[in-house]
Protein backbone atom coordinates (compact mmCIF):
# COMPACT_ATOMS: atom_id res chain seq x y z
CA UNK A 1 0.00 0.00 0.00
CA UNK A 2 2.87 2.39 0.81
CA UNK A 3 4.21 1.89 -2.71
CA UNK A 4 0.77 2.62 -4.27
CA UNK A 5 0.60 5.77 -2.24
CA UNK A 6 4.03 6.87 -3.40
CA UNK A 7 2.94 6.43 -7.01
CA UNK A 8 -0.20 8.43 -6.35
CA UNK A 9 1.76 11.26 -4.75
CA UNK A 10 4.18 11.28 -7.68
CA UNK A 11 1.26 11.54 -10.08
CA UNK A 12 -0.03 14.66 -8.39
CA UNK A 13 1.62 17.73 -9.79
CA UNK A 14 2.10 19.71 -6.57
CA UNK A 15 5.88 19.54 -6.79
CA UNK A 16 5.97 20.81 -10.36
CA UNK A 17 4.22 24.04 -9.47
CA UNK A 18 6.43 25.00 -6.55
CA UNK A 19 9.76 24.60 -8.33
CA UNK A 20 11.71 27.65 -9.52
CA UNK A 21 8.91 30.03 -8.51
CA UNK A 22 11.22 33.00 -8.15
CA UNK A 23 12.71 32.32 -11.57
CA UNK A 24 9.30 32.24 -13.22
CA UNK A 25 8.23 35.39 -11.40
CA UNK A 26 11.38 37.31 -12.36
CA UNK A 27 11.03 36.29 -16.03
CA UNK A 28 7.62 37.91 -16.75
CA UNK A 29 6.67 39.82 -13.63
CA UNK A 30 9.55 42.10 -12.76
CA UNK A 31 7.19 44.46 -10.90
CA UNK A 32 6.19 41.56 -8.62
CA UNK A 33 9.82 40.93 -7.73
CA UNK A 34 10.35 44.67 -7.13
CA UNK A 35 7.26 44.60 -4.87
CA UNK A 36 8.74 41.69 -2.92
CA UNK A 37 11.90 43.76 -2.38
CA UNK A 38 9.81 46.73 -1.18
CA UNK A 39 7.92 44.51 1.27
CA UNK A 40 11.18 43.08 2.61
CA UNK A 41 12.56 46.61 3.05
CA UNK A 42 9.48 47.62 5.04
CA UNK A 43 9.81 44.47 7.16
CA UNK A 44 13.50 45.19 7.82
CA UNK A 45 12.70 48.81 8.69
CA UNK A 46 10.05 47.58 11.15
CA UNK A 47 12.45 45.14 12.80
CA UNK A 48 15.39 47.55 12.98
CA UNK A 49 13.32 50.65 13.90
CA UNK A 50 15.21 51.30 17.19
CA UNK A 51 18.51 51.29 15.26
CA UNK A 52 17.27 53.44 12.36
CA UNK A 53 16.00 56.34 14.48
CA UNK A 54 17.46 58.09 17.54
CA UNK A 55 14.02 59.14 18.85
CA UNK A 56 11.49 57.26 20.99
CA UNK A 57 8.11 56.72 19.35
CA UNK A 58 6.24 58.20 22.32
CA UNK A 59 8.75 60.89 23.41
CA UNK A 60 6.62 64.01 23.78
CA UNK A 61 8.26 67.40 23.25
CA UNK A 62 5.69 70.20 23.18
CA UNK A 63 8.20 72.86 22.10
CA UNK A 64 8.69 70.97 18.82
CA UNK A 65 5.06 70.23 18.05
CA UNK A 66 3.79 70.40 14.44
CA UNK A 67 7.23 71.15 13.00
CA UNK A 68 7.43 70.72 9.19
CA UNK A 69 9.94 68.27 7.66
CA UNK A 70 13.51 69.38 8.37
CA UNK A 71 17.02 67.99 8.69
CA UNK A 72 16.43 67.05 12.36
CA UNK A 73 12.98 65.56 11.78
CA UNK A 74 12.93 64.20 8.24
CA UNK A 75 9.15 63.84 8.15
CA UNK A 76 8.30 66.55 10.67
CA UNK A 77 6.74 66.20 14.11
CA UNK A 78 3.18 65.57 15.25
CA UNK A 79 0.87 67.34 17.73
CA UNK A 80 2.91 66.01 20.67
CA UNK A 81 6.28 66.92 19.17
CA UNK A 82 6.98 63.24 18.42
CA UNK A 83 9.12 62.46 15.37
CA UNK A 84 6.82 61.30 12.55
CA UNK A 85 9.45 59.07 10.87
CA UNK A 86 9.98 57.24 14.17
CA UNK A 87 6.25 56.71 14.66
CA UNK A 88 6.00 55.59 11.03
CA UNK A 89 8.72 52.96 11.56
CA UNK A 90 7.24 51.67 14.81
CA UNK A 91 3.75 51.88 13.34
CA UNK A 92 4.87 49.68 10.47
CA UNK A 93 5.35 46.87 13.01
CA UNK A 94 1.68 47.01 14.01
CA UNK A 95 0.37 47.56 10.50
CA UNK A 96 2.45 44.75 8.96
CA UNK A 97 1.76 42.36 11.82
CA UNK A 98 -1.96 43.06 11.68
CA UNK A 99 -1.85 42.63 7.93
CA UNK A 100 -0.01 39.33 7.97
CA UNK A 101 -0.72 37.40 11.18
CA UNK A 102 -4.55 37.50 11.24
CA UNK A 103 -4.58 36.78 7.49
CA UNK A 104 -2.44 33.72 8.11
CA UNK A 105 -4.79 32.59 10.90
CA UNK A 106 -7.82 33.20 8.63
CA UNK A 107 -6.12 31.07 5.98
CA UNK A 108 -5.60 28.21 8.45
CA UNK A 109 -9.14 28.32 9.83
CA UNK A 110 -10.68 28.88 6.39
CA UNK A 111 -8.65 26.09 4.80
CA UNK A 112 -9.54 23.58 7.52
CA UNK A 113 -13.23 24.46 7.32
CA UNK A 114 -13.39 24.70 3.52
CA UNK A 115 -11.45 21.53 2.83
CA UNK A 116 -13.42 19.48 5.37
CA UNK A 117 -16.72 20.85 4.13
CA UNK A 118 -15.86 20.27 0.45
CA UNK A 119 -14.39 16.82 0.97
CA UNK A 120 -17.08 15.32 3.21
CA UNK A 121 -20.04 17.14 1.64
CA UNK A 122 -23.59 16.36 2.79
CA UNK A 123 -25.21 18.02 5.80
CA UNK A 124 -21.85 19.21 7.22
CA UNK A 125 -21.19 21.07 3.97
CA UNK A 126 -24.67 22.64 3.90
CA UNK A 127 -24.53 23.87 7.50
CA UNK A 128 -20.97 25.17 7.25
CA UNK A 129 -21.65 27.01 4.00
CA UNK A 130 -24.82 28.61 5.41
CA UNK A 131 -22.79 29.87 8.38
CA UNK A 132 -20.15 31.19 5.95
CA UNK A 133 -22.96 32.85 3.94
CA UNK A 134 -24.20 34.57 7.09
CA UNK A 135 -20.71 35.86 7.90
CA UNK A 136 -20.21 37.02 4.31
CA UNK A 137 -23.64 38.71 4.18
CA UNK A 138 -22.40 41.09 6.79
CA UNK A 139 -20.62 44.14 5.43
CA UNK A 140 -17.14 43.21 6.60
CA UNK A 141 -16.29 46.60 8.09
CA UNK A 142 -19.55 46.60 10.04
CA UNK A 143 -18.94 43.07 11.32
CA UNK A 144 -15.43 44.10 12.32
CA UNK A 145 -16.81 47.15 14.15
CA UNK A 146 -19.48 45.10 15.98
CA UNK A 147 -16.91 42.49 17.05
CA UNK A 148 -14.54 45.27 18.20
CA UNK A 149 -17.44 46.81 20.15
CA UNK A 150 -17.94 43.48 21.88
CA UNK A 151 -14.28 42.78 22.57
CA UNK A 152 -13.09 46.33 23.16
CA UNK A 153 -10.19 48.10 21.46
CA UNK A 154 -6.56 47.02 21.36
CA UNK A 155 -4.22 45.14 19.05
CA UNK A 156 -5.02 41.57 20.20
CA UNK A 157 -8.75 42.16 19.70
CA UNK A 158 -8.09 43.58 16.25
CA UNK A 159 -6.33 40.27 15.40
CA UNK A 160 -9.29 38.23 16.61
CA UNK A 161 -11.78 40.46 14.79
CA UNK A 162 -9.97 40.13 11.47
CA UNK A 163 -9.89 36.32 11.78
CA UNK A 164 -13.64 36.27 12.57
CA UNK A 165 -14.31 38.38 9.48
CA UNK A 166 -11.81 36.77 7.09
CA UNK A 167 -12.23 32.98 7.42
CA UNK A 168 -15.51 32.69 5.46
CA UNK A 169 -14.17 33.96 2.12
CA UNK A 170 -11.16 31.61 2.36
CA UNK A 171 -13.41 28.66 3.26
CA UNK A 172 -15.52 29.24 0.13
CA UNK A 173 -12.53 29.35 -2.22
CA UNK A 174 -10.83 26.32 -0.64
CA UNK A 175 -14.12 24.40 -0.72
CA UNK A 176 -14.54 25.16 -4.44
CA UNK A 177 -10.96 24.04 -5.08
CA UNK A 178 -11.49 20.85 -3.01
CA UNK A 179 -14.65 20.02 -4.96
CA UNK A 180 -12.72 20.46 -8.20
CA UNK A 181 -9.79 18.29 -7.06
CA UNK A 182 -12.09 15.60 -5.65
CA UNK A 183 -13.13 14.78 -9.24
CA UNK A 184 -9.61 13.73 -10.20
CA UNK A 185 -8.96 10.08 -10.91
CA UNK A 186 -6.01 9.75 -8.57
CA UNK A 187 -8.23 10.74 -5.64
CA UNK A 188 -10.75 8.08 -6.57
CA UNK A 189 -7.92 5.61 -7.03
CA UNK A 190 -6.64 6.41 -3.54
CA UNK A 191 -10.09 5.81 -2.06
CA UNK A 192 -10.46 2.49 -3.90
CA UNK A 193 -7.04 1.36 -2.71
CA UNK A 194 -8.24 2.07 0.85
CA UNK A 195 -6.26 5.16 1.83
CA UNK A 196 -7.88 6.84 4.86
CA UNK A 197 -9.88 10.01 4.06
CA UNK A 198 -7.82 12.20 6.40
CA UNK A 199 -4.66 11.03 4.66
CA UNK A 200 -6.16 11.78 1.23
CA UNK A 201 -7.02 15.29 2.39
CA UNK A 202 -3.58 15.97 3.83
CA UNK A 203 -1.37 14.20 1.27
CA UNK A 204 -3.28 14.76 -1.97
CA UNK A 205 -5.80 17.59 -1.69
CA UNK A 206 -3.95 20.06 0.53
CA UNK A 207 -0.70 20.18 -1.49
CA UNK A 208 -2.71 20.84 -4.66
CA UNK A 209 -4.72 23.57 -2.93
CA UNK A 210 -1.54 25.27 -1.75
CA UNK A 211 -0.94 27.49 -4.82
CA UNK A 212 -4.49 28.84 -4.54
CA UNK A 213 -4.04 29.38 -0.80
CA UNK A 214 -0.71 31.17 -1.26
CA UNK A 215 -2.15 33.52 -3.90
CA UNK A 216 -5.25 34.17 -1.80
CA UNK A 217 -3.03 34.90 1.21
CA UNK A 218 -1.00 37.48 -0.71
CA UNK A 219 -4.14 39.10 -2.11
CA UNK A 220 -5.94 39.19 1.28
CA UNK A 221 -3.07 40.93 3.12
CA UNK A 222 -3.72 44.35 1.51
CA UNK A 223 -7.39 43.98 2.42
CA UNK A 224 -6.43 43.23 6.06
CA UNK A 225 -4.04 46.18 6.20
CA UNK A 226 -6.78 48.48 4.85
CA UNK A 227 -9.36 47.09 7.31
CA UNK A 228 -7.02 47.63 10.28
CA UNK A 229 -6.16 51.15 9.08
CA UNK A 230 -9.85 51.92 8.66
CA UNK A 231 -10.74 50.54 12.11
CA UNK A 232 -7.91 52.49 13.75
CA UNK A 233 -8.92 55.58 11.74
CA UNK A 234 -12.43 55.34 13.23
CA UNK A 235 -10.95 54.92 16.72
CA UNK A 236 -11.95 51.29 17.05
CA UNK A 237 -8.67 49.57 16.40
CA UNK A 238 -5.23 50.04 17.88
CA UNK A 239 -5.35 52.49 20.76
CA UNK A 240 -2.87 55.28 21.65
CA UNK A 241 -0.06 55.50 22.67
CA UNK A 242 0.64 52.53 20.34
CA UNK A 243 1.46 53.73 16.85
CA UNK A 244 -0.36 52.37 13.83
CA UNK A 245 -0.57 54.04 10.45
CA UNK A 246 -4.38 54.25 10.61
CA UNK A 247 -4.23 55.88 14.02
CA UNK A 248 -1.64 58.38 12.77
CA UNK A 249 -3.94 59.33 9.88
CA UNK A 250 -6.85 59.73 12.27
CA UNK A 251 -5.00 62.03 14.71
CA UNK A 252 -3.38 63.89 11.84
CA UNK A 253 -6.77 64.64 10.28
CA UNK A 254 -7.37 67.33 12.90
CA UNK A 255 -4.38 69.22 11.48
CA UNK A 256 -5.11 68.54 7.80
CA UNK A 257 -4.84 72.18 6.70
CA UNK A 258 -1.99 73.28 9.02
CA UNK A 259 0.24 70.21 9.01
CA UNK A 260 -0.86 68.03 6.05
CA UNK A 261 2.24 65.79 6.29
CA UNK A 262 0.79 64.25 9.49
CA UNK A 263 -2.01 62.64 7.48
CA UNK A 264 -0.43 62.08 4.13
CA UNK A 265 2.87 60.48 5.18
CA UNK A 266 1.18 57.43 6.79
CA UNK A 267 -1.35 57.40 3.90
CA UNK A 268 1.48 57.10 1.38
CA UNK A 269 3.10 54.35 3.46
CA UNK A 270 -0.19 52.40 3.49
CA UNK A 271 -0.58 52.96 -0.25
CA UNK A 272 2.94 51.69 -1.04
CA UNK A 273 2.65 48.52 1.04
CA UNK A 274 -0.85 47.71 -0.26
CA UNK A 275 0.26 48.32 -3.86
CA UNK A 276 3.33 46.12 -3.31
CA UNK A 277 1.24 43.22 -1.97
CA UNK A 278 -1.28 43.64 -4.82
CA UNK A 279 1.47 43.50 -7.48
CA UNK A 280 3.09 40.53 -5.76
CA UNK A 281 -0.28 38.76 -5.50
CA UNK A 282 -1.06 39.43 -9.17
CA UNK A 283 2.30 38.03 -10.26
CA UNK A 284 2.01 34.96 -8.03
CA UNK A 285 -1.51 34.31 -9.28
CA UNK A 286 -0.45 34.48 -12.94
CA UNK A 287 2.42 32.09 -12.27
CA UNK A 288 0.78 29.69 -9.83
CA UNK A 289 -2.94 29.61 -10.38
CA UNK A 290 -4.55 31.20 -13.46
CA UNK A 291 -7.96 29.88 -12.22
CA UNK A 292 -8.10 32.86 -9.86
CA UNK A 293 -7.68 35.43 -12.65
CA UNK A 294 -10.50 37.98 -12.73
CA UNK A 295 -10.82 38.07 -8.92
Amino acid at each position, binding site marked *: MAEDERELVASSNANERSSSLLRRLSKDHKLSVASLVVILLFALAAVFAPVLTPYDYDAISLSDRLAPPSFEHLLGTDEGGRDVLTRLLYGSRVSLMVGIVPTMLSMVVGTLVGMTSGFFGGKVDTVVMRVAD*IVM*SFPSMLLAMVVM*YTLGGGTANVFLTMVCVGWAGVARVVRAETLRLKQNEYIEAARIVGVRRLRIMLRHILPNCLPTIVVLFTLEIPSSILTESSLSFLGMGVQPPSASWGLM*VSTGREFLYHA*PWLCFVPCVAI*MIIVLAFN*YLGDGLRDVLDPHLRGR
Partner: protein
Amino acid sequence: MSGTVARGLLRRLLYALIAIVGVAALVFALLRVVPGNPVATLLGEQADNETVERISSSLGLDQPVLTQFANYMLGVLRGDFGESFMLGKPVAELIGPAFVNTLWLALAASLFSWVVGIACGLIAATHKSTIIDRLFMGFSLLGVSLPVFMVAMLLQYVFARYLHWLPVTGVSDWTGYILPAVALGWGLAGSIARLVRSSVIEVMQQDYIDTAIAKGRTNVQVLVFHALRNAMLPIITLMAMQFSSLLSGAFITETIFSINGIGRLSVQAIAGRDIPLLQGTTLLCTFVIVMGNLVADLLYSVCDPRVRKGA
Protein backbone atom coordinates in the same frame (compact mmCIF):
# COMPACT_ATOMS: atom_id res chain seq x y z
CA MET B 1 -41.04 31.37 -15.79
CA SER B 2 -40.15 27.66 -15.83
CA GLY B 3 -40.55 25.44 -12.77
CA THR B 4 -36.79 25.06 -12.30
CA VAL B 5 -36.23 28.80 -12.32
CA ALA B 6 -39.11 29.40 -9.88
CA ARG B 7 -37.78 26.72 -7.54
CA GLY B 8 -34.29 28.21 -7.80
CA LEU B 9 -35.66 31.64 -6.96
CA LEU B 10 -37.58 30.32 -3.94
CA ARG B 11 -34.50 28.51 -2.70
CA ARG B 12 -32.39 31.67 -3.04
CA LEU B 13 -35.07 33.69 -1.21
CA LEU B 14 -35.09 31.13 1.60
CA TYR B 15 -31.28 31.28 1.92
CA ALA B 16 -31.49 35.09 1.89
CA LEU B 17 -34.04 35.02 4.70
CA ILE B 18 -31.90 32.59 6.72
CA ALA B 19 -28.89 34.88 6.19
CA ILE B 20 -30.79 37.97 7.37
CA VAL B 21 -32.26 36.28 10.46
CA GLY B 22 -28.88 34.67 11.16
CA VAL B 23 -27.08 38.00 11.06
CA ALA B 24 -29.74 39.63 13.24
CA ALA B 25 -29.30 36.83 15.79
CA LEU B 26 -25.50 37.09 15.60
CA VAL B 27 -25.53 40.84 16.21
CA PHE B 28 -28.14 40.47 18.96
CA ALA B 29 -25.96 37.90 20.72
CA LEU B 30 -22.69 39.83 20.20
CA LEU B 31 -24.12 43.05 21.62
CA ARG B 32 -25.35 41.26 24.73
CA VAL B 33 -22.05 39.54 25.36
CA VAL B 34 -20.52 42.89 26.27
CA PRO B 35 -19.93 42.93 30.04
CA GLY B 36 -21.88 45.43 32.07
CA ASN B 37 -25.42 46.70 31.80
CA PRO B 38 -25.71 49.12 28.85
CA VAL B 39 -28.28 51.17 30.75
CA ALA B 40 -25.87 51.58 33.68
CA THR B 41 -23.17 52.72 31.22
CA LEU B 42 -25.61 55.14 29.63
CA LEU B 43 -26.87 56.64 32.89
CA GLY B 44 -23.39 56.98 34.35
CA GLU B 45 -21.91 56.26 37.74
CA GLN B 46 -24.34 58.55 39.61
CA ALA B 47 -27.41 56.44 38.84
CA ASP B 48 -28.68 54.18 41.64
CA ASN B 49 -29.50 50.51 41.16
CA GLU B 50 -33.24 51.09 41.39
CA THR B 51 -33.24 53.55 38.46
CA VAL B 52 -31.04 51.25 36.37
CA GLU B 53 -33.36 48.29 37.05
CA ARG B 54 -36.50 50.31 36.32
CA ILE B 55 -35.19 51.55 32.98
CA SER B 56 -33.76 48.12 32.07
CA SER B 57 -37.16 46.61 32.74
CA SER B 58 -38.96 49.22 30.64
CA LEU B 59 -36.56 48.45 27.76
CA GLY B 60 -37.15 44.72 28.19
CA LEU B 61 -33.47 44.06 28.96
CA ASP B 62 -34.29 41.92 32.01
CA GLN B 63 -36.04 39.23 29.97
CA PRO B 64 -34.35 36.07 28.62
CA VAL B 65 -32.27 36.73 25.48
CA LEU B 66 -34.42 34.51 23.23
CA THR B 67 -37.60 36.33 24.34
CA GLN B 68 -35.90 39.66 23.67
CA PHE B 69 -34.84 38.47 20.20
CA ALA B 70 -38.32 37.15 19.35
CA ASN B 71 -39.92 40.42 20.50
CA TYR B 72 -37.38 42.40 18.51
CA MET B 73 -37.96 40.45 15.27
CA LEU B 74 -41.76 40.68 15.67
CA GLY B 75 -41.34 44.43 16.18
CA VAL B 76 -39.18 44.68 13.04
CA LEU B 77 -41.95 43.04 11.00
CA ARG B 78 -44.28 45.82 12.25
CA GLY B 79 -41.68 48.47 11.39
CA ASP B 80 -40.66 49.03 15.01
CA PHE B 81 -36.90 48.95 15.45
CA GLY B 82 -36.92 50.17 19.04
CA GLU B 83 -35.78 53.50 20.39
CA SER B 84 -32.29 54.95 20.29
CA PHE B 85 -30.57 55.13 23.71
CA MET B 86 -28.56 58.21 22.70
CA LEU B 87 -31.17 60.29 20.91
CA GLY B 88 -34.44 59.06 22.43
CA LYS B 89 -36.13 58.85 19.02
CA PRO B 90 -37.52 55.76 17.27
CA VAL B 91 -34.70 54.10 15.36
CA ALA B 92 -36.89 53.87 12.25
CA GLU B 93 -37.15 57.69 12.22
CA LEU B 94 -33.35 57.98 12.30
CA ILE B 95 -32.35 55.33 9.79
CA GLY B 96 -34.95 56.41 7.17
CA PRO B 97 -33.46 59.82 6.28
CA ALA B 98 -29.92 58.47 6.76
CA PHE B 99 -30.60 55.72 4.23
CA VAL B 100 -31.84 58.28 1.69
CA ASN B 101 -28.56 60.23 1.99
CA THR B 102 -26.57 57.03 1.61
CA LEU B 103 -28.70 56.09 -1.41
CA TRP B 104 -27.82 59.35 -3.21
CA LEU B 105 -24.14 58.88 -2.37
CA ALA B 106 -24.24 55.28 -3.59
CA LEU B 107 -25.88 56.32 -6.87
CA ALA B 108 -23.35 59.11 -7.44
CA ALA B 109 -20.34 56.92 -6.61
CA SER B 110 -21.66 54.06 -8.74
CA LEU B 111 -22.27 56.30 -11.75
CA PHE B 112 -18.73 57.65 -11.49
CA SER B 113 -17.18 54.20 -11.09
CA TRP B 114 -19.20 52.66 -13.94
CA VAL B 115 -18.37 55.40 -16.45
CA VAL B 116 -14.67 55.64 -15.54
CA GLY B 117 -14.22 51.89 -14.97
CA ILE B 118 -15.82 50.75 -18.23
CA ALA B 119 -14.06 53.44 -20.27
CA CYS B 120 -10.61 52.59 -18.80
CA GLY B 121 -11.20 48.85 -19.14
CA LEU B 122 -12.25 49.19 -22.79
CA ILE B 123 -9.28 51.39 -23.66
CA ALA B 124 -6.90 48.96 -21.97
CA ALA B 125 -8.50 45.95 -23.70
CA THR B 126 -8.33 47.52 -27.18
CA HIS B 127 -4.66 48.48 -26.67
CA LYS B 128 -3.65 45.19 -25.11
CA SER B 129 0.04 44.77 -24.22
CA THR B 130 0.89 48.35 -25.21
CA ILE B 131 2.09 51.15 -22.97
CA ILE B 132 -1.51 52.48 -22.81
CA ASP B 133 -2.70 49.13 -21.44
CA ARG B 134 0.00 49.08 -18.75
CA LEU B 135 -0.73 52.73 -17.85
CA PHE B 136 -4.47 52.20 -17.45
CA MET B 137 -4.04 48.94 -15.53
CA GLY B 138 -1.45 50.65 -13.33
CA PHE B 139 -4.04 53.35 -12.56
CA SER B 140 -6.64 50.70 -11.83
CA LEU B 141 -4.36 48.95 -9.38
CA LEU B 142 -3.59 52.31 -7.81
CA GLY B 143 -7.32 52.90 -7.46
CA VAL B 144 -7.79 49.59 -5.71
CA SER B 145 -4.75 50.14 -3.45
CA LEU B 146 -5.37 53.72 -2.33
CA PRO B 147 -7.16 53.79 1.03
CA VAL B 148 -10.51 55.60 0.75
CA PHE B 149 -9.58 57.98 3.57
CA MET B 150 -6.49 59.05 1.64
CA VAL B 151 -8.41 59.95 -1.52
CA ALA B 152 -11.13 61.63 0.56
CA MET B 153 -8.72 63.79 2.56
CA LEU B 154 -6.61 64.62 -0.49
CA LEU B 155 -9.73 65.89 -2.28
CA GLN B 156 -10.79 67.85 0.80
CA TYR B 157 -7.32 69.39 1.12
CA VAL B 158 -7.03 70.38 -2.55
CA PHE B 159 -10.54 71.79 -2.86
CA ALA B 160 -10.57 73.56 0.52
CA ARG B 161 -7.07 75.00 0.22
CA TYR B 162 -6.68 75.77 -3.47
CA LEU B 163 -9.62 75.18 -5.79
CA HIS B 164 -12.78 76.23 -3.86
CA TRP B 165 -15.02 74.86 -6.61
CA LEU B 166 -16.94 72.34 -4.52
CA PRO B 167 -18.09 72.03 -0.89
CA VAL B 168 -15.81 69.82 1.22
CA THR B 169 -18.24 68.90 4.01
CA GLY B 170 -21.98 68.30 4.28
CA VAL B 171 -24.56 67.94 1.49
CA SER B 172 -26.60 71.15 1.37
CA ASP B 173 -27.18 70.53 -2.36
CA TRP B 174 -26.23 68.02 -5.08
CA THR B 175 -22.71 69.43 -5.46
CA GLY B 176 -21.95 68.16 -1.95
CA TYR B 177 -22.10 64.59 -3.27
CA ILE B 178 -19.43 65.07 -5.97
CA LEU B 179 -16.23 64.82 -3.92
CA PRO B 180 -17.47 61.93 -1.72
CA ALA B 181 -18.65 60.12 -4.87
CA VAL B 182 -15.19 60.45 -6.45
CA ALA B 183 -13.46 59.33 -3.24
CA LEU B 184 -15.68 56.24 -3.03
CA GLY B 185 -15.96 55.52 -6.74
CA TRP B 186 -12.25 55.74 -7.51
CA GLY B 187 -11.42 52.36 -5.94
CA LEU B 188 -14.54 50.70 -7.38
CA ALA B 189 -13.66 52.02 -10.86
CA GLY B 190 -10.31 50.25 -10.51
CA SER B 191 -11.96 46.86 -9.88
CA ILE B 192 -14.42 47.37 -12.74
CA ALA B 193 -11.66 48.42 -15.17
CA ARG B 194 -9.65 45.28 -14.42
CA LEU B 195 -12.66 43.02 -14.90
CA VAL B 196 -13.80 44.82 -18.08
CA ARG B 197 -10.34 44.43 -19.58
CA SER B 198 -10.03 40.69 -18.87
CA SER B 199 -13.64 39.99 -19.85
CA VAL B 200 -13.47 41.93 -23.15
CA ILE B 201 -10.13 40.36 -24.10
CA GLU B 202 -11.62 36.90 -23.55
CA VAL B 203 -14.74 37.73 -25.62
CA MET B 204 -12.70 39.28 -28.46
CA GLN B 205 -11.19 35.86 -29.09
CA GLN B 206 -14.58 34.32 -29.88
CA ASP B 207 -15.57 33.34 -33.40
CA TYR B 208 -18.59 35.62 -33.57
CA ILE B 209 -16.27 38.63 -33.36
CA ASP B 210 -14.48 37.46 -36.51
CA THR B 211 -17.90 37.01 -38.14
CA ALA B 212 -18.93 40.54 -37.22
CA ILE B 213 -15.72 41.98 -38.66
CA ALA B 214 -16.12 39.85 -41.80
CA LYS B 215 -19.67 41.21 -42.18
CA GLY B 216 -18.16 44.67 -42.44
CA ARG B 217 -19.01 46.15 -39.06
CA THR B 218 -16.85 49.06 -37.90
CA ASN B 219 -14.48 48.62 -34.99
CA VAL B 220 -16.73 50.63 -32.68
CA GLN B 221 -19.80 48.59 -33.66
CA VAL B 222 -17.93 45.33 -33.03
CA LEU B 223 -16.68 46.59 -29.68
CA VAL B 224 -19.94 47.95 -28.34
CA PHE B 225 -22.61 45.69 -29.85
CA HIS B 226 -20.79 42.40 -29.92
CA ALA B 227 -17.83 42.38 -27.54
CA LEU B 228 -19.05 44.58 -24.68
CA ARG B 229 -22.58 43.15 -24.71
CA ASN B 230 -21.26 39.64 -24.23
CA ALA B 231 -18.53 40.68 -21.80
CA MET B 232 -20.98 42.56 -19.57
CA LEU B 233 -22.25 39.52 -17.68
CA PRO B 234 -19.63 39.24 -14.92
CA ILE B 235 -19.26 43.04 -14.97
CA ILE B 236 -22.98 43.57 -14.24
CA THR B 237 -22.73 41.12 -11.34
CA LEU B 238 -19.77 43.02 -9.91
CA MET B 239 -21.56 46.35 -10.38
CA ALA B 240 -24.68 45.08 -8.59
CA MET B 241 -22.64 43.74 -5.68
CA GLN B 242 -20.64 46.96 -5.39
CA PHE B 243 -23.85 49.02 -5.40
CA SER B 244 -25.43 47.01 -2.62
CA SER B 245 -22.17 47.21 -0.67
CA LEU B 246 -22.27 51.02 -1.05
CA LEU B 247 -25.87 51.07 0.18
CA SER B 248 -24.77 49.49 3.42
CA GLY B 249 -22.91 52.68 4.16
CA ALA B 250 -19.52 54.14 3.43
CA PHE B 251 -18.34 54.54 7.01
CA ILE B 252 -15.12 56.39 6.32
CA THR B 253 -16.35 58.64 3.48
CA GLU B 254 -19.48 59.68 5.36
CA THR B 255 -17.44 60.39 8.50
CA ILE B 256 -14.84 62.49 6.66
CA PHE B 257 -17.35 64.47 4.60
CA SER B 258 -19.85 64.73 7.50
CA ILE B 259 -22.68 63.18 5.55
CA ASN B 260 -25.53 61.96 7.72
CA GLY B 261 -25.77 58.50 6.20
CA ILE B 262 -26.18 54.94 7.46
CA GLY B 263 -22.42 54.44 7.74
CA ARG B 264 -21.86 57.48 9.91
CA LEU B 265 -24.91 56.57 12.00
CA SER B 266 -23.43 53.10 12.63
CA VAL B 267 -20.11 54.60 13.72
CA GLN B 268 -21.93 57.01 16.06
CA ALA B 269 -24.04 54.15 17.45
CA ILE B 270 -20.90 52.17 18.27
CA ALA B 271 -19.17 55.15 19.84
CA GLY B 272 -22.30 55.90 21.90
CA ARG B 273 -22.90 52.21 22.71
CA ASP B 274 -26.43 52.62 21.37
CA ILE B 275 -27.57 49.02 20.94
CA PRO B 276 -31.02 49.58 19.35
CA LEU B 277 -29.59 52.02 16.80
CA LEU B 278 -26.71 49.68 15.98
CA GLN B 279 -29.09 46.74 15.63
CA GLY B 280 -31.30 48.79 13.33
CA THR B 281 -28.48 49.96 11.05
CA THR B 282 -26.91 46.49 10.96
CA LEU B 283 -30.18 44.80 10.07
CA LEU B 284 -30.83 47.33 7.30
CA CYS B 285 -27.28 46.99 5.91
CA THR B 286 -27.48 43.21 5.92
CA PHE B 287 -30.90 43.23 4.27
CA VAL B 288 -29.56 45.49 1.54
CA ILE B 289 -26.46 43.36 0.91
CA VAL B 290 -28.37 40.07 0.87
CA MET B 291 -31.03 41.49 -1.48
CA GLY B 292 -28.29 43.03 -3.63
CA ASN B 293 -26.54 39.67 -4.00
CA LEU B 294 -29.88 38.06 -4.84
CA VAL B 295 -30.56 40.70 -7.51
CA ALA B 296 -27.04 40.17 -8.89
CA ASP B 297 -27.73 36.40 -9.12
CA LEU B 298 -31.09 37.03 -10.82
CA LEU B 299 -29.56 39.56 -13.24
CA TYR B 300 -27.07 36.90 -14.23
CA SER B 301 -29.93 34.45 -14.94
CA VAL B 302 -31.88 37.05 -16.89
CA CYS B 303 -28.93 38.21 -18.98
CA ASP B 304 -27.53 34.77 -19.77
CA PRO B 305 -30.11 32.39 -21.25
CA ARG B 306 -27.64 29.52 -20.78
CA VAL B 307 -27.92 29.89 -17.00
CA ARG B 308 -31.72 30.24 -17.19
CA LYS B 309 -32.19 27.14 -19.28
CA GLY B 310 -29.75 25.16 -17.15
CA ALA B 311 -27.36 24.47 -20.05
